[in-house]
Structure formats: structure tokens, C-alpha cells
């Protein structure tokens, strides 16, 4: 079971997609099939944390079989503390996405759900691939269903948004592929673990390594997105169907930064970190300021996401252990919160057919349950203690304060305050105050059972993650780092003595 579980997780959604594609498009049949498939996969992903050995560093559940002889591409998959929970997260967001589309996708369910399931496979693939080519394969594959679905279900101009999304993310992956090929030409392997050792041993010349690392970073930074590469985000959020929009930003790019940019090129990453820190802090403030002035709640969500994703980027490039753990944890939080917000906004949009914030007002009387959950999620996003957002933000900001620079940390904290401002202001405008004409015209129509079934578990999970984050952090911290650490230390002791990672000797030995 241990060696086949990851393959199963990859194949079940794909098989589901095939079944959906082959059966007739009748009523809600595709939706039910997709729900069953995603639930089954979600249950399968539980196997990972249940059998994960958190006293052991390195990859587990590994499969490593030759796929193609020359070039030597291996079907090499496995998870470690970093990717473990991301896989479970993808599993959780599967059924959430299906239920979120339950009523909003009314036409061509077959196409929608089969592409949705392909997208699931692609995302699992990205998180578990340990062979760079296989990884790249899934990375590219994840673009296609997304682009097609944005074009098909766009609200206003889906085609344009789809083009923008696709080109923004496809073009940077060209240098990424060249970089991967170059690494292969130099080292003769695509194996992540081997490459890590070979790069550390200096098999790639220094000046070439700079460019290779930069190509990696560029591709990932667009996908996150990092300011100023966020051009696609607002349009994609505005046009994509809810289930797709909630998975498009953030985790793929951030995970790849941690795993492949910092993991393979710690020295180069450390050298470029000051730039990334600056961009991240700008992104935090820029996203927050723009979120304040948005009129459409999808665009609002896009800029809020930019701000929060920039905070995670800050945690990653602060080059501290605490920051990395915090970032890995915050990726999970952020995805959960975003997913919940997407479902909530989607529920509003399906009831009132508009995403204009000004059209709403006083909704709390009309939809009390929706308002309650919305407030809980907003508080989690703001970073209220006892909810999950707090833990991640605290870890990131405190590590920045101690390990990077007081100035940056202060400015970044300002962004957190701004996030409270725009979020609470939005809550006030939408749910409280004078009842708007539109809200008054419609009969009260609160969350129905299906929506509550999605939202309450998410809200409860936010609370659990906030109260006992150690359940997660414990295994996240087993993600392999020693090699990284030594190199980063070596680099930092020469170049920037003030940015030595905050780690105790105990952590080094572990």
C-alpha cells in the first residue's frame, strides 16, 4: 500500500475524468461522479498523514521506476513534510470545488467536471513529483483545463482572461524547461535528490547556476504571483468558475519556490532574496491598498490574495527555519480561507447575480448563516488569534523581524493591519448597514444544506488549525533542510552576516 498510494491518488481522478467523459451528460450525473471521485481521492490522501513517519526526515511513500531510458526520466514520486499536507489540501479542495459548482455550473457539466478532475490529477502530480521532468509535465498540464474552463465559463470576457492566464504562465515556463534541460546536460539526471547534491557539489558553473536559478524563480514567481508579475490574477479571479479560481493562485508556485528554487539553489536564492523580500513587502502593501478600492468582489479577492501571498513569499525568502515552517503552514491556511471566501462570494453571486460590492448591504438580516460564516472566515484571514491565519502570519512576521530586518518586518505588519481594514470594511458594506434595494427586493435566501456542508467543516478546520497548529507543524518541520542550511550559512557568512538564519544548534542536528 505504501508504495502504491501516491499512484492511486494520481490515477483515481484521471479515471474519474474518463468515466465522466464517456458517460452521457444527463442531469447531475457528472457532478455526482465527480463528487464521488474527489471524495474517494480525499479519503485516499488521509493515508499519507496517518502513515507518515514524522520522526524521519526525507521523502516517504517513494516510487522510483524508470519511465524513459534516454533521457533518463523516472516516474519518481514521494512526499515529505512540505508536500504531505499540500496533497491532503488538494484532496480536501476537490469535493469543495465540486460542491461549489453544484448549482453554479448548469450547462455542459460533462466537460466541466472531466476537466476539473484532470486538473486535480495535475495538481497532485506537481506536489508529489521528484523527477524534474515529471514535475514539469504536471506543471504544464495544470494550465490547460484551467484555461479552457475560464474561456468556457467566463462571466464577461472569458476568452481574453483565459488567453492572459495561459500566456502569463506558459511563457515563463519556457526558460524553466531550458533550465531543466541545461541541468540535465550538465549532470545527467532529473532526480531532485541527486541534483540537490550535485548542484551543491558544484557540478553547475556559478554563472550558469545564476541563470538557471533565475529561470526557476521567474516561472514560480509568475504563478504565485509576486508583484509585479500579477497581471493575470485579477482577470482570472474575475472570470474563472469558482472551483477553478480557488486553486489557481498560490500553492503551486509557493511550493515550487520552497522545493525547487531554495531546495536546489540555496546559494543563488539567498543572493536574490533581498530583491524578493522587497517585492514581497511592496506586494503586501500594494495588494492591500488596491483591495481597499475595488468595486467588484472577485477583483477585491484577487488583490487581497496578492497581499497574503506576498506575505508568504516574504516568509520563504527571509531564509529562516521559522519562516519556512510558517510559510508552509500559511500556504495551507491561505488556501482554506480563499476557498471558503470563493464559496461564500459564489453563493452571493448565484443569489443576486452580481459581484458589485455596492449593490449589497444589510445582508446579515437576510442571510444570517452566510454572514456568520463570512465573519469567521474574515477573522481567520485577518489573523485573529485562535484561528489559523494568526499562527502562520505570526511565524512569518516574527521570523522576519528577528532574522531579516526590523524595517521590512514593520512595513509588512502594516500590511496586516491594512488587511483588517479592507476585510472588515467589506463585511460592514456587504452584511451590515442599510439594507440595499436589491437585498430588499429578493426574498431571504440563506445558505442551503449543501453549502453549509462545505463551509462549516472549513470553518471548524480553521479553528482547529489555529488552536493546535503543532499537528501540522510537527510534520512540516521534518522537510529536509540540512543541505540547504549549510549552504545558506556558507553563503551568508561571506556575503551578509546580518541575515544568518535563526536556528538553534538543536535544529541543525535534527
Amino acid at each position, binding site marked *: 500500500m505504501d508504495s502504491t498510494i501516491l499512484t492511486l491518488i494520481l490515477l483515481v481522478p484521471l479515471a474519474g475524468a474518463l468515466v465522466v467523459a464517456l458517460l452521457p451528460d444527463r442531469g447531475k450525473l457528472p457532478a455526482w461522479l465527480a463528487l464521488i471521485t474527489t471524495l474517494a481521492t480525499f479519503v485516499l490522501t488521509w493515508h499519507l498523514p496517518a502513515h507518515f513517519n514524522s520522526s524521519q526526515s526525507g521523502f516517504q511513500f517513494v516510487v522510483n521506476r524508470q519511465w*524513459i531510458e534516454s533521457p533518463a526520466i523516472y516516474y519518481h514520486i514521494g512526499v515529505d513534510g512540505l508536500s504531505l499536507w499540500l496533497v491532503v489540501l488538494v484532496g480536501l479542495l476537490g469535493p469543495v470545488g465540486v460542491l461549489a459548482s453544484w448549482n453554479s455550473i448548469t450547462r455542459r457539466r460533462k466537460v466541466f467536471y472531466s476537466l476539473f478532475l484532470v486538473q486535480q490529477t495535475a495538481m497532485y502530480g506537481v506536489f508529489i513529483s521528484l523527477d524534474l521532468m515529471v514535475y514539469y509535465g*504536471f506543471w*504544464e498540464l495544470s494550465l490547460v483545463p484551467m484555461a479552457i474552463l475560464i474561456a468556457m465559463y467566463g462571466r464577461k470576457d472569458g476568452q481574453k482572461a483565459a488567453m492572459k492566464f*495561459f500566456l502569463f504562465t506558459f511563457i515563463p515556463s519556457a526558460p524553466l*524547461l*531550458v533550465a531543466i534541460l541545461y541541468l540535465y546536460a550538465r549532470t545527467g539526471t532529473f532526480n531532485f535528490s541527486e541534483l540537490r547534491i550535485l548542484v551543491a557539489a558544484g557540478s553547475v558553473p556559478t554563472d550558469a547556476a545564476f541563470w538557471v536559478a533565475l529561470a526557476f524563480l521567474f516561472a514560480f514567481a509568475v504563478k504565485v504571483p509576486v508583484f509585479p508579475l500579477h497581471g493575470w490574477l485579477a482577470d482570472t479571479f474575475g472570470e474563472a468558475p469558482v472551483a477553478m479560481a480557488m486553486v489557481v493562485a498560490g500553492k503551486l508556485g509557493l511550493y515550487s519556490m520552497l522545493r525547487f528554487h531554495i531546495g536546489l539553489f540555496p546559494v543563488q536564492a539567498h543572493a536574490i532574496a533581498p530583491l524578493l523580500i522587497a517585492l514581497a513587502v511592496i506586494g503586501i502593501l500594494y495588494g492591500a491598498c488596491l483591495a481597499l478600492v475595488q468595486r467588484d468582489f472577485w477583483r477585491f479577492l484577487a488583490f487581497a490574495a496578492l497581499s497574503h501571498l506576498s506575505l508568504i513569499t516574504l516568509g520563504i525568502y527571509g531564509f529562516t527555519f521559522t519562516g519556512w515552517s510558517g510559510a508552509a503552514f500559511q500556504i495551507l491556511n491561505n488556501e482554506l480561507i480563499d476557498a471558503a471566501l470563493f464559496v461564500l462570494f459564489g453563493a452571493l453571486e448565484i443569489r443576486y447575480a452580481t459581484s458589485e460590492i455596492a449593490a449589497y448591504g444589510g445582508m446579515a438580516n437576510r442571510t444570517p448563516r452566510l454572514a456568520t460564516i463570512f465573519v469567521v472566515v474574515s477573522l481567520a484571514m485577518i489573523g485573529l488569534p485562535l484561528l489559523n491565519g494568526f499562527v502562520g502570519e505570526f511565524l512569518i512576521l516574527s521570523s522576519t523581524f528577528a532574522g531579516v530586518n526590523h524595517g521590512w518586518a514593520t512595513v509588512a505588519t502594516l500590511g496586516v493591519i491594512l488587511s483588517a481594514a479592507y476585510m472588515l470594511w467589506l463585511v460592514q458594506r456587504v452584511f451590515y448597514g442599510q439594507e440595499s434595494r436589491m437585498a430588499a427586493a429578493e426574498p431571504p435566501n440563506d445558505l442551503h444544506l449543501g453549502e453549509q456542508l462545505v463551509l462549516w467543516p472549513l470553518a471548524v478546520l480553521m479553528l482547529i488549525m489555529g488552536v493546535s497548529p503543532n499537528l501540522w507543524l510537527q510534520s512540516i518541520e521534518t522537510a529536509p533542510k540540512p543541505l540547504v542550511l549549510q549552504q545558506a550559512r556558507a553563503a551568508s557568512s561571506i556575503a551578509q552576516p546580518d541575515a544568518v538564519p535563526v536556528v538553534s544548534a538543536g535544529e541543525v542536528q535534527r
Partner: protein
Amino acid sequence: MNTVLDMYRILPEVILTITGVLVMLVDASLAPFRSRRPLGWVAASGTTAAYAASIWQLSLPVGTGFSGTVETSPFTVFFHVLICGIVIVTLLLSLDTLPEDSHHQGEYYALMVFGAVGMCLLTSAVELLVVFIGLEISSISTYILAGYRKQTGKGPEAAIKYFLLGSFATAFLLYGIALVFGATGTTQVYEIARNVSSAPNQVLVNAALGMMLVGILFKVSAAPFHIWTPDVYEGAPSPVVALMSTAPKAAAFAFLLRIVYEMFPTLRSVWAPVLWIVAVLSMTVGNLAALRQQNVKRMLAYSAIAHAGYLLAAFAGFGSTGISAASFYIAAYAAMNVGIFAVITIAGGYGDERPLVQDYKGLLHRSPLLGSLLIFFLVSLIGIPFTGGFFGKFYSFSAAVGGGAVILAIIGLMNSGLAAAYYLRFALAAAQRSAEDEEASRMPSMQVGIAVGAALLLATAATLALGIVPGGTLRATEAGAHTLQAPPAASVVPADITATRANQ
């Protein structure tokens, strides 16, 4: 000389010739009002037999026949199989889509088969004059087929344009052959390879190389010799475009591989930079022009130019890596391009009722099968992983990176980003819902006949197989690459040659 073995060495060509002649004879003896459709089946079965014969040729000892003019090796078998495969699929495609009342149907099928003879001969010939004969047979068949819709204005225009420019290019090739004979005193490929470095006049050798490159680069529609492509693609019937955008190109590329890797490997410092420039030009010109096209076939014509550029990038690789990458790319490109033209043929019909990209709006909803196949082939042309197009590009650019042409690989991949824009525009148009979409979905979806269905299935299976399990094909291309790198023992060939010379 072993006559039987010699005949075995050209067995696929023989089978194809017999099939072609048979088709023409039966066509002539059939009453005018009788359906010509069975002739298509005859042609397809004959080509299938040739396909099988090509595979069987692997059991022959590697070597040359007919006094060192025709070679059998894994390299030739790979291209024979590829060409026969393409011809089978396009024949199946034509079977259901050629209108029953169109003229000269028998000749149409016969010409396709004769074209295949020429292309196969071109890949297995190791004597430049035989190469020339093969090239002419294949070219003349495609010239005629390009003008098959002679009642439209664009058909004859396409044929004449193709014929004039094509003859001009062939003249270049012939001139190159003459020069190489002047410089080295022979037209046998291995002999040339041996004599080239000791040739007294190196200027002549370089000029010969240049002329031959011009002739071949025209055939593969590489910039700056690409001007004919869009017009010809637009004017020719879609199944013919499916054929001529892949099979003659495969044959021409096989010969190009022979020229640079077998005949003139010592002149790498000359041809490598030339091909570098041509590759960059082709992909950039092709993609930039394709971006602006509204007509589907013209767009795909420019995309063909761009793909010729990606393929030429493989030539920056050293020895067997370059050869096998190029061979693989040809196969992958053939699979997806035949596939997409199959979809266009079915959707647009024989008369090109859907010339523009916007005519495909909502195809996915009107006909889910065709629509999803269209998107699938476009995704492969973009080069998304798990499709043949991806591994084609992958091997090509990794050969380039391995050969030290990192800049070329970067330009190439940037170009494939650019190309994604127009492929995606097409794919998204098919995915988009259009206004009349709702009532259209109630209309019966397009009928797909058995032959066309088989053609689509073959193209899809090939594209998928090359993307998921490229191992087998890769081994074949590598085996081919090694035979091209190490020509058969020298002692056999000159004896044969001198014997023929003496006889003359």
C-alpha cells in the same frame, strides 16, 4: 549480386508501385458511374502491406542493394514506417470525405500511393541520382494532388505555385548534386563522405552543400524558402494537406539528415551555423505570421513553418542525439498534424466550408468528440506534456542544449510560448459557446464514418503514445541514428560501384 536480396531491399516500394498501378488499371476498367470508393480501400490495404513489409525489412542484414544505391537499415525502416503510416491515415481520411461525384477519384488514390513510393525511395536511397528520382516522384504526385480541386480558383493556383517554385528548388538540388560530383568524383553518399575532406576544391564542396540545402529546405518549408506554404495549404483539399505537410517533409528531413550527418559531417562548422539561422528564422517568421491569420489552413501553414524551425533546432545536437531527436520530432509532428487536419477535414468538409477560426466557435458543444480532439491536437501542437508534441520539442531542444546551442533552445521555447497564443485562440474558439449554440446542440452531431473514425483514432493514439510511452519510438530513432552514423563497411560498396562503372 544477389537479386532476391536486392528486391527485398525495395520491397515496400515494389508493393506500393504494384498497388498504384493496380488502382489505375481498375479505375480505367470500371464503368464511369460506378463508385470509386473500393479503390481507396485497395490503396489503403496495399499501403498497409508496404507498412508490414517495411517492418519485416528489419530482419534483413543492414546494407545496400542494387550496386550500392539503396540502403536498408533501421533508419530507412523508421522513415518507411512513418511515411506508410501517414499515407494510410490520409487515405482513410479521404475515403469518407471525397465527394462521390468528384472526378478522377481513382487517380487521386493512385497518386497518393505513387507519392509514397517516391518518399520511401528518397529515404532509402544512398545514391544522389536515385535520391533525385525519389524526390521527383513524390513532388510531382503532390503537385497534382495540390491542384485536385480544379473547379475552384485556389486549387490550380496552389498547384501552379507549388510546381513552379518546387521545380526551381529541385533545380538547386540537382545543381548541388552536379557540383558534388565535380568535387568528389562520385554521387554515392558513402563515397562522398570519404572523399569530401580530400577533395581538391573545397569551395566547390561548400557550394554543393549550399545548393543542396536550399533545395531541401524548400521542401521542408523552412524560412526563407517558405513563401509557397500558406497558398498551397489554402488551395489544396484538407486530406491532401494532411499528407503533404507531413510525409514529403519527413522524407525530405530524412535526406537532410543524410546530407549533413552522413555526407558532410566534416563540414559541421559550415552547416551548423546555417541551420541555426534557418531554424531561428523559421520559427520566428512562422509564429509571427501565424499570429495574424484568421484562416485556419493558412495559420496551420505558418505553424508548419515554425515547426520546421523547432525541428531544425535538433540539428544543433551532436551525432546520434541530433539525428534521433529530429527523427522523433518528425514522427510526433506527423501524428498531431495529420490529426488536426483530419478534424478540419471532417468539420469543414471537402469544400472547406469552415475556413476561418471563428467558424469553429462552439465546435466542442456541437460535436463534443470532434471538439475535444481538436483541442487535444492543438494542445499537442503547443507542446503540453503527455502529448507527442511535448516530447518532440523536448528532445529537439535538449539535443540543442546538449550541442551547446543554449540560445537557440531559449529562442525556440520563447517561440513556442508565442505559438501558444494562436493555437490557444483556436482551441478557445472551439470551447466557447456561441449564440446559435443552443439550437445547434439540438441538431444531429456530425456523422463520422468508419474510415474517418479509424483515421482519427490512429492519429490520436499515435500522438498520445508518443507523449506517454515515447520509449519504443525513441529506441527506433536511436537505432536509425547509429546506422546513419556508422555506414556499412566500406569494402562492399566500391566493388559494386566500380563494377557498374565498368559495365557502363
